[in-house]
């Protein structure tokens, strides 16, 4: 009996989980291995003697050095970081106030406005970049970080607003009523009571917004032309694929380094992030 149950647990639990983990993590593993693999090993056929397709026998930093020397990777990293942080902050501030208003204030058309904001989020970026390009050109923001810092909020604000609206709705109304009796204005109650209580939700929205802007591709590709203004996703793809030549090692090294900050952000806030998406506030 016991043995049979163990066998079933393997079949129904561990096996699917292993498949899932391999499926999701293998690309990352492959990226990491490629980033440290010397070129001669990279282009060797698998049939060759001593071949080790799944790992590397001679780990090397040549791609790292190459990336740093031949491309503006550190600049890209800095651009991406700056743009992601600024656009996240702009979106969070707007999203907090808008989300609060939609969750709490009763005004004419508040429901319509909520839906309208959501619909703007549904407009695909691949369409929206055309009119936005026009605006960016008119404002002469092209090829400056502002082009992205101001256009990313077009999809980040609706996202943050909706996520935070949902979170604010889970906070008991009495908390701010009590604060207002205790001597706070509506604004004071929002800033002193509701926002601190909503920190898990705000952090989740922030992490998501940061990731979305970090990984954004289309706007960054269209609005940024010169190499020293590019972000990591665009820079890596446009500078390390020349014609039909792929600099695989440097590409993978760039991708690996580019994903590290996001992974760090996630791991720092993972607990908040989970409660922000799943939990509400208890008394």
């Amino acid at each position, binding site marked *: 009996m016991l043995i049979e149950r163990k066998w079933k647990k393997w079949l129904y639990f561990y096996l699917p989980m292993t498949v899932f983990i391999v499926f999701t993590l293998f690309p990352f593993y492959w990226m990491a291995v490629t980033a440290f693999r010397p070129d001669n090993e990279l282009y060797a056929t698998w049939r060759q003697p001593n071949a080790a397709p799944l790992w590397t026998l001679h780990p090397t930093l040549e791609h790292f050095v190459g990336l740093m020397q031949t491309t503006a990777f550190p600049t890209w990293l800095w651009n991406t970081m700056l743009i992601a942080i600024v656009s996240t902050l702009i979106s969070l501030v707007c999203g907090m106030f808008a989300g609060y208003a939609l969750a709490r204030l009763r005004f004419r058309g508040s429901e319509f406005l909520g839906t309208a904001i959501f619909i703007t989020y549904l407009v695909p970026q691949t369409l929206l970049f055309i009119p936005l390009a026009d605006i960016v050109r008119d404002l002469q923001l092209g090829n400056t970080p502002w082009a992205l810092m101001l256009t990313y909020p077009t999809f980040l604000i609706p996202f943050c607003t909706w996520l935070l609206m949902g979170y604010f709705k889970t906070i008991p109304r*009495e908390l701010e009523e*009590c604060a*207002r*009796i*205790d001597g*706070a204005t509506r604004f004071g109650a929002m800033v002193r009571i509701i926002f601190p*209580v909503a920190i898990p939700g705000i952090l989740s929205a922030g992490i998501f917004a940061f990731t979305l802007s970090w990984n954004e591709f289309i706007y960054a590709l269209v609005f940024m032309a010169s190499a020293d203004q590019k972000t990591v996703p665009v820079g890596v793809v446009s500078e390390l694929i020349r014609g039909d030549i792929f600099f695989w090692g440097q590409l993978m090294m760039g991708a690996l380094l580019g994903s590290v900050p996001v992974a760090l952000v996630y791991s720092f806030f993972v607990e908040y992030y989970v409660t922000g998406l799943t939990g509400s506030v208890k*008394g």
Partner: protein
Amino acid sequence: MARVSIQNLNKKYDNGFHAVKDVNLEIQDKEFVVLVGPSGCGKTTTLRMVAGLEEITSGEIRIGEQVVNDLPPMDRNIAMVFQNYALYPHKTVFDNMAFGLQMRGYAKADVDKRVREAAEMLGIQPLLERKPRQLSGGQRQRVAVGRAIVRHPQVFLFDEPLSNLDAQLRVQMRVELKRLHEQLETTAIYVTHDQVEAMTLGDRVVVMKDGLVQQVGEPLELYAQPANRFVAGFIGSPAMNFVEVAISGAGAALWAQAEGLRVRVPTEFAERVHAHAGKRLTLGVRPEALRIANGVDEYSFETAVDVVEPLGNEILLNFRAGGVPMVARVDPGVRIKAHDNIRFALDPQRLHFFDPGSDAAL
């Protein structure tokens, strides 16, 4: 420390629901007034209008001498205890209690002194550094009360503060609240749906239903002289028995009659009931106004008991009379089994008659 005066207070919501209808209430300084009624009767809405959390459709609310209709909650000098306590989850107990004082710019030493005083009064000094989620229900309740008393407000507002507690704790907190009120001598308005809480806590009780005040009075006054059938049925547990009776006879000898029940209308009612001779009235009898008869007289009737509920300090006898189920509360010494035939006698001093049309007491 102030009177609260409510005049012609109305609340109509945008969807047309008329939650509070022409409520008039004068609450004296230091008085403890309880608003009681079934859910949706407008009691909480009334309280929230006093607090300033709900806009007033029409009417006037004064706290002290000041009309507060348009004052924001923070300027009304009130404190409120909510049903779910509404403690700030990110603040410690100390900071929860201090928040109202800090918002009003009290000096740090003064805040500290007041919070510690209140904590001592409620026996929560050891909890001051904890967060609300580390407290039990009863402790949270105390903190919520403490947060209200540190400010020494003019009026305390309580919105069903005990209904999230278990039964035992509720009884204990009820006594503590009453003691606290005597100590603090502050006007208090308390909302509950529990008539026992209302009767035990209130100097005066306001019974509400469908947005209308049904009766205002001291607890025993409501119990002994209910203004209408609703109040009579709402106050008291087990509830008053109601029987539809036909009034017959003439002059001094009026009789109230229903199936299996024929009793004489007591002489003090005769004059008022006389006008209804030949018509129907509702007879109200409290369970304790029924006793086991010693002999046959004009206030007694015989019936079979269905269910006997021995509660220890009393026995509840359930039976049918006049076509409706009734309850009698009798001495625990009485030995009665289910299905025994019993002769009950009504206490003629404690009968109530209600007009079946208006439900008003005669």
